């Protein structure tokens, strides 16, 4: 298929996925902030949100040093100048979709377009201020719908595989960032919550992380036990059956990449396969003993490099 078309599909899905993950994090933080006993958790969360997206500088430039929920929400949801805001992501997703609307099924295109039109309507009405939770829910469901309509209507040709690759590469990145920031937020590096207060704090902290990746019920089902940080990390990094984990995301990246391989993509596939294997055969205690932050930083670098190689091999070839 046309390289430019593949490029647009790849970025369309990345932006849609990014919007969803941003909505997830904002939602969980917003819900947490409604509970009086977890105000401190929420405050850390608002800061974390900006750190995750590497936006602290841009934010303080505009809103000053005060990190208030209202400002963060505004900045992350509707700020047109913030390239990572939900608004900007959905606009970019739609622009990419429009550039290749002919390569999408009618239902798929209309879903993308409708999302954009409704977004504008929702932000203009006062609904968002009244009930941010409902808005985040909407963003998530539009993303579900977009994915579902793609799977349900698209021919499983190259276009489909590049679309899927974008989704999972972005998800791997987003989940890794979420883990990095949230684990970082616990200063004791999460070993040794001694006081009762700390334990309570920890429960909200870990359950918030789980809920932001729809993992709360999954955790209970898998471990049938209290929430511990080790298991949260294991679930989100290594469990290949947890759809938003790093392992699951990398599996999908490799699957889709291997279908579209061309004459010069061998090295890219090898590196993707190696990253996948590293997750497949890793153990959480090993990762934790060498340091989670170091592990995730390296992972993010490798995912980023993979994105660059995919671009070079397929999307923006020098011919």
């Amino acid at each position, binding site marked *: *298929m*046309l*390289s*430019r*078309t*593949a490029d647009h599909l790849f970025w369309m899905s990345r932006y849609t996925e990014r919007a969803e993950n941003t909505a997830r994090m904002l939602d969980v933080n917003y819900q947490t902030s409604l509970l009086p006993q977890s105000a401190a958790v929420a405050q850390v969360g608002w800061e974390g949100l900006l750190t995750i997206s590497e936006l602290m500088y841009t934010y303080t430039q505009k809103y000053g040093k005060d990190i208030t929920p209202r400002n963060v929400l505004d900045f992350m949801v509707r700020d047109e100048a913030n390239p990572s805001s939900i608004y900007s992501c959905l606009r970019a997703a739609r*622009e990419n979709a*429009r*550039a*290749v*609307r*002919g*390569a999408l099924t*009618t239902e798929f*295109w*209309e879903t993308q*377009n*409708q999302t954009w*039109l409704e977004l*504008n*309507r929702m932000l*203009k009405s006062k609904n968002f201020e009244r009930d941010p939770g409902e808005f985040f829910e909407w963003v998530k469901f539009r993303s579900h719908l977009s994915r579902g309509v793609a799977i349900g209507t698209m021919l499983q040709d*190259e276009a489909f595989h*590049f679309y899927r690759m974008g989704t999972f590469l972005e998800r791997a990145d987003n989940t890794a960032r979420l883990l990095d920031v949230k684990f970082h937020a616990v200063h004791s590096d999460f070993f040794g919550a001694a006081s009762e207060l700390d334990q309570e704090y920890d429960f909200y902290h870990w359950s918030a992380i789980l809920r932001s990746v729809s993992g709360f019920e999954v955790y209970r089902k898998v471990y049938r036990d209290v929430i511990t940080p080790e298991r949260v990390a294991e679930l989100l990094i290594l469990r290949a059956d947890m759809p938003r984990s790093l392992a699951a995301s990398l599996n999908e990246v490799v699957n889709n990449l291997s279908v*579209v391989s*061309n*004459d010069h993509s061998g090295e890219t596939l090898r590196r993707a396969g190696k990253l996948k294997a590293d997750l497949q055969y890793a153990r959480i205690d090993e990762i934790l003993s060498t340091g989670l932050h170091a592990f995730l930083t390296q992972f993010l670098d490798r995912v980023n490099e993979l994105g660059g190689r995919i671009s070079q091999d*397929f*999307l923006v*070839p020098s*011919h």
Partner: protein
Amino acid sequence: MSRPMFDEMNASPSEVRAHYQNYARWLAQQPEDVMAARREEAEMIFRRVGITFAVYGAKDEDGSGTERLIPFDLIPRIIPAHEWRSMEEGLVQRVTALNRFIHDVYHGQEIIKAGIVPADQIFQNAQFRPEMMGVDVPHQIYSHISGIDIVRAPNADGVGEYYVLEDNLRVPSGVSYMLEDRKMMMRLFPELFGENRVAPVAHYPDLLLETLRASSPATTAEPTVVVLTPGMYNSAYFEHAFLAQQMGIELVEGQDLFVKDNFVYMRTTRGPKRVDVIYRRVDDDFLDPSVFRPTSTLGCEGLLGVYRSGNVAICNAVGTGVADDKSIYPYVPKMIEFYLGQKPILNNVPTFMGREPEDLKYMMANMKDLVVKEVHGAGGYGMLVGPASTKAEIEDFRKAVAANPTGYIAQPTLSLSTCPTYVQSGVAPRHIDLRPFVLSGKEVQMVPGGLTRVALKEGSLVVNSSQGGGTKDTWILED
């Protein structure tokens, strides 16, 4: 103004024309509020489907940027089958002659030698492409897709007659609206299509693909056909994407193409792929920066060289503009006689040419009654509608014409036929035209009908979408 009027639906306030009777009966039974709801529904669907055109430099308050809807009117324009049959014959004849003409211009120039078209009308024409001299194109077809603008106006007896107003042989657009308007009508009013035998149009993309494949260079049996678009910010981008999708072929931009070893390739995820036929929706000027406008990034460097070698087909061919210019238009009836030895079936609008001293004198004296057009203008710009203009506007135009008489033509102000149309105050007559899309490949063919455009402003004769025009579904009613 008491010019005679011709309404497509109503012969008189009390009498509905025969071919509209079925529809008029149905329309009379529709409650106001239902039709109002349908109008809203149509607009909502057009938005969702993204059937929009881009307006440069404009911004909508609802954040949809520069994308605008073309207003769609619910009342169809109906043409009875016998009228269409003769129009179709006339279109085949006209487009065949125009293709012969373009071939002649770039080869033997017999029509100049015969003294029918003056040489300077061709060689001084900015649309004449010397690069095309002697270049052979498959089947000697230049204008594969022709949009012929037809209007109806009453003659002295009040009988409506069809006239060709303009030939569009470069990159005529609008066919996607023809198709989407029909889809919309069938969605909103399925029952109407059970009661009326409306000729289908949905097979247009098939005919188009067939036409494009037939224009392939001899170098391949399985040609790769692509649509070349200037990109998503072009006003007709929706149509480009739509046609590519309907034909199942790639929609490429200039940056996707490159020339190597005298062939054109596109960059794909599996490496370079050769391209055999380019349905280009980019003007000549932008096609190849090494030959035409050097700053263009919309085309592909070296494309014309490959084309001249016969290794790629470009549809429409380069240089077709020489035949659709307003200065060439007056000669088309004579072309038909010259090349085909036939009497023209479709009328031209009587045209005065600024280059002819007699005509010029008449133009200058009667400007307030004439439509004066700049010969190279398009899209309803560079045009004076005498009866609708102020004294000052007419005076300005008179000066312009005096300064450059060959740059202008004039026609009597035709009272374009009207069709009942939904407007703010209810249903009222509005002027319309018709653009059938004629395809020339192995044979000359078309789907029945075309795009009906309607001037929504009261009394306005300008139907262009860039100037507030809308569209209607066009029905050819089978017997």
